[in-house]
């Protein structure tokens, strides 16, 4: 009996080890790419291109310890006697490791007559990290330099600070407005009776699957006629329009399942629909509202296509600014990485602050749904 218990405990311990092992492995794989960019964002631009980001960790690497220049009398076409071994030029080109661990490599072509001696050593203890990338990215500092013919060239920095503000101005109302409108609509569909209710609702659900690409061209034409291109309003309305079907669908699921008795007793007390909605429905729906808020916020913040088409290049949001760093100046990876991290900060903060509601909200929807 005791033996059986012990084996049960052992099995449980083993399975927990297995579960946590697999999950930790997946999580490490998930984190490595991000970690690489985090580290890169603190390195200076030369280092980024000279070596991989993992070299900031202590590791063993060939380090040059000296040079041997061959005597002009030595014939480089014949096997060469050096450091106690004999080797041809080709062998030296490929590198030879000596018995004591040193490595000999011929530098360049035959005429250089130079052999570089290197040793494997531990390096990477003095990581060369800097905050300059973040400073430069945020300030959008202007860079002046002289070209070959002596003309002074002024290059405007990529102003991510301004793009961040633009993103906030787009994302906050583009999250709140659709939720507000969707909550009203969902309440109307769930609790008010009017002719054509079902048909209208089915149409709304069908619109879920319309790709937003289909709407971009006509909307752009309307905006041009109304002189709306390049305004925040144009972005809010577009994101509201594209986000509404999902918002209405999710909120309808939630609001239609609130206990009927609660609303009926409020009606009997003489409350109007509007009062019931603002005093009862909205507070009760906080989990569902918060869960949709996360999705919509993440979506709007990370949107690239709508912002590119409607706001264009003059009024950049974070994603467009980041993409333009990639596109225009393929070499500015030090700015790109710090920019990418700045753009992640706010969504991550929103995610962590609403995470509690998020899981609970989804839970309520899916169990009953």
């Amino acid at each position, binding site marked *: 009996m005791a033996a059986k218990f012990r084996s049960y405990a052992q099995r449980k311990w083993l399975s927990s080890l297995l579960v946590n092992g697999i999950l930790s492995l997946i999580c490490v794989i998930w984190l490595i790419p*991000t970690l690489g960019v985090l580290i890169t964002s603190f390195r200076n631009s030369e280092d980024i291109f000279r070596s991989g980001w993992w070299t900031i960790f202590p590791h063993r690497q060939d380090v040059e310890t000296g040079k041997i220049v061959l005597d002009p009398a030595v014939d480089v076409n014949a096997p060469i006697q050096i450091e106690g071994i004999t080797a041809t030029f080709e062998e030296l080109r490929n590198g030879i490791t000596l018995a004591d661990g040193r490595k000999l490599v011929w530098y360049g072509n035959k005429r250089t007559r130079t052999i570089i001696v290197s040793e494997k050593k531990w390096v990477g203890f003095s990581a060369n990290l800097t905050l300059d990338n973040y400073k430069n990215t945020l300030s959008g500092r202007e860079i002046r330099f002289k070209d070959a013919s002596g003309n002074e060239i002024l290059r405007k920095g990529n102003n991510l600070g301004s793009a961040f*503000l633009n993103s906030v101005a787009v994302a906050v109302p583009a999250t709140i407005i659709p939720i507000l409108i969707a909550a009203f609509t969902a309440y109307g569909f769930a609790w008010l009776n009017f002719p054509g209710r079902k048909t209208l609702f089915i149409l709304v659900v069908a619109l879920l699957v319309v790709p937003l690409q289909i709407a971009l061209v006509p909307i752009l034409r309307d905006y041009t006629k109304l002189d709306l291109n390049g305004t925040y309003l144009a972005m809010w309305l577009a994101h509201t329009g594209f986000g509404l079907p999902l918002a209405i669908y999710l909120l309808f699921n939630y609001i239609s399942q609130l206990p009927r008795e609660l609303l009926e007793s409020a009606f009997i007390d003489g409350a109007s629909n509007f009062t019931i909605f603002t005093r009862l429905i909205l507070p009760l729906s906080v989990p569902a509202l918060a869960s949709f808020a996360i999705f919509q916020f993440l979506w709007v913040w990370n949107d690239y296509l709508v912002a590119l088409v409607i706001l264009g290049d003059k009024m950049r949001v974070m994603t467009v600014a980041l993409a333009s760093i990639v596109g225009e100046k393929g070499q500015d990876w030090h700015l790109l990485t710090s920019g990418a991290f700045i753009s992640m900060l706010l969504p991550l903060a929103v995610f962590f602050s609403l995470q509690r509601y998020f899981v609970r909200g989804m839970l309520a929807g899916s169990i009953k749904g």
Partner: protein
Amino acid sequence: MQDYSDREQNAKGGVLTWVATNLGRILVSLFVPVVTFLILWQGFIFLRDSNAPQIVIVLVAILWGVGGVALLFLVSNWLVEQLPAVWTRRLQPFVFIGPGIAILTWYLAVPVVRTLLLSFQNELSTAWVGMDNYIFALSDRVMLEAFRNNLLWMVVGTSLSVGLGLLIAVLADRSRFEALYKAVIFMPMAISFVGAGVIWKFVYTYKGEGAGIQEIGLLNAIVLALGGQSQPWLQIPPWNNFLLIIIMVWLQTGYAMVIISSAIKGVPAELLEAARIDGASEIEAFFNITVPYIQGTLITVTTTIVIFSLKLFDIVRVMTGGNNGTNVIANEFYLQSFTYNHAGRASAIAVILLIAALPVIVYNLRQFQERKAF
């Protein structure tokens, strides 16, 4: 209850009441959106042309927009409540649903119809060209490649995201560190596709061979450390597609995991306990109880990710621009409409996207009927 009295009124009032009621409903539906729009619009023209510091403009804009919408709901409701009780009852539902329906009509329903019309017209939408644009879209070599790639994205990307999401959700359910694991897996969702592009460039990048050159891409560094040759990964078709799909899996697994995980929490513990007592192994219990129980959620998650991969644009645009055999439909649509300025072809491609999504609409509506949500 209201529906009943409404019908009664209609029967008594006859045609005139019917016309007046519907006119009122349409007016109410349009009131909030149109008035809001006009006020916000003027405000924005003003804001756009002003020279105030950006931070001030941003704050004013946020208050202006959110406050405006909330206020107009309040005002239109107040107006309707001033009417006689019968009219309030008839019109009030449209105070609630009107704005939503109006915006949906403008932004989604009308564009569907207009895109359909444009797709039968020429480059500048000046003449009808019949099926020409569709013939192009369904026969052009670039388009066929895009279709093949989208199919890859849909099948491989979706199954990997949902599969991994399910695996992680099930395993995390049995771990003490569930919240931590879930947060890590969900994190990429908070990252934009452009940011993700940056992150993955540091994995796939290639510098080439030469004296003293060190690879700075992780994948090449690993391959070199294992004694292989470094490769320009994103330029080798068709494998580069799979490398791009990995990025989508990395981004979307968190979404699948969170939703599936909450469904798993809803599986009654007694059911699983009973199965275990009957001698079912953990794996049998999973497939015979958990999976059927969360089937609805699995369908929802799969549907969303299929639609997502059909509309996928950003990853390809940022990583390869659609070159080297990695083009997808949405990217081709973007090129046709904004780079080549061919409205007809672009619209035809968009319509094809919609048609490709049709089976998903039908399937979902049927699910919806079965669940009797009304």
